């Protein structure tokens, strides 16, 4: 859980969601009427509309994908760590065996 929360993906997803919440609370949704083709009231209206559309799209497409990516990343990292430990264990196991065989070898030598 700690590793998940510290993931860069989660942080970025939180930033994206927060940005969307802020622009929504600021009432920027009404400026989306720039898409209607009939509303031509000023540059700020256009800018606010674009900001809202971008944050909306990011919160829908990007944020959930980032959360999902964080889950997958955490899982893959754990699998990676476990497999490394396993490899090291096997490597360690092999070298120990070789060492024992080497130590045993002079005793049995004629």
């Amino acid at each position: 859980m700690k590793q998940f929360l510290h993931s860069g993906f989660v942080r970025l997803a939180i930033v994206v969601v927060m940005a969307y919440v802020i622009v929504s609370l600021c009432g920027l949704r009404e400026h989306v009427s720039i898409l209607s083709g009939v509303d031509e009231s000023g540059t700020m209206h256009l800018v606010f509309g674009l900001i809202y559309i971008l944050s909306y799209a990011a919160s829908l497409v990007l944020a959930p994908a980032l959360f999902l990516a964080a889950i997958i990343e955490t899982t893959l990292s754990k699998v990676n760590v476990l497999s490394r430990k396993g490899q090291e264990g096997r490597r360690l196991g092999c070298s120990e065996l070789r060492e024992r065989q080497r130590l045993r070898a002079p005793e049995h030598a004629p």
Partner: protein
Amino acid sequence: MKSRLCISAIALILAIAIWLPLLHLFFRPDIGDLGLEKGVSRIADQLAAHHLQIWTNPDLRNRELAQMRQLNPEWDFMSRTFLVMALASIALRDESRIPQCLETIDLVIENTLLIEQEDGFQDFLLGYGYADNWKVQPPKSIFVDGEISLMIGARRMVADRADYQHLMAERIGNMVAQMTLSPVLSAESYPDECWVFCNTIALAAIRLGDVLDHSNHSEFLREWVETAKLHLVEPQSGLLISAYAVDGTPLPNGPGPEGTSIWMACHMLQVVDGAFAQDQYQRAKAQLGRSLLGFGYSREWPRAFAGVMDIDSGPIVPFVEASASASGLALLGAAGFSDKKYLRQLMTSLNIAGFPTRKNGTLCYQASNPVGDAVLLYALVQGPLWEKAK
């Protein structure tokens, strides 16, 4: 470090691959909201409430309609037609709403007739409607006559009004006379500019007139369809072209099929020649109807027929070539032909990209305007009017 970056990249790609195909599920409408069953769906009810508010509040009406007229007077006019068609359909779906619907329908029709009388029919046209090169004299626009006849016809299908009977019969007589002067049986919407959109609306109005007044234009309607099959169909796609001169020559502003014309034409032709309408719908769906990750949309032009973006097509989304205007009218096509799957996909797109806004029991789409909302409203309630007209 390298393996960590690799894991992050794989995780992100996998996450996007999982998320994008699931996204549409959060915006998919209920089957009951599509308006394919009896009664008036929740969405249609809320959209209708928004339009009724516009027409019962003079300030709001002036503001909304003036905003549209500023950019395109046609939109104001078409929003009236679609609203009247929608309200007539709602009245036929729910008898308890007949008085309320008729009151607004009459208000819209009377206001439209008044503008036409005081300012001339050109007031509903784009600027070049004032040019004096109309082929047929005296100048008349089938765009205006057809839609006014259709509005009156729709009203009379709910409850007849003696004074409207004469108005409609006179207009239909003029339209037929005008159309007969053209070798392709089509009248001008603009000077020497015939649109399949307007002419098929006129045909549907003529059909309504036949049903209401027991007149018989079946031979004319049959002849129109036969002529269109020969002269107004683009050979490669088999779809009706959009704009042509009075003599049938395709015009540069609509030489081929267009989504903004064909979906409407398909719906109008349903009461004229069901088989031809069905054939056109299937072809339009194959050539223009698209879906991506569960989201439906319509192209404005078939792949093999590149067109130029204009006020009708609206903005075109790059790469996928989606047209907002064509997609809006595709809703009407899909609803008219009970194409549940495509209609649901289109509604899904509308839910994500239309920015629905609900306020005091009303619904409007922030990314749309009253004409777009009226098209959607009519798409969600259409059916009973055409059933009566068939």
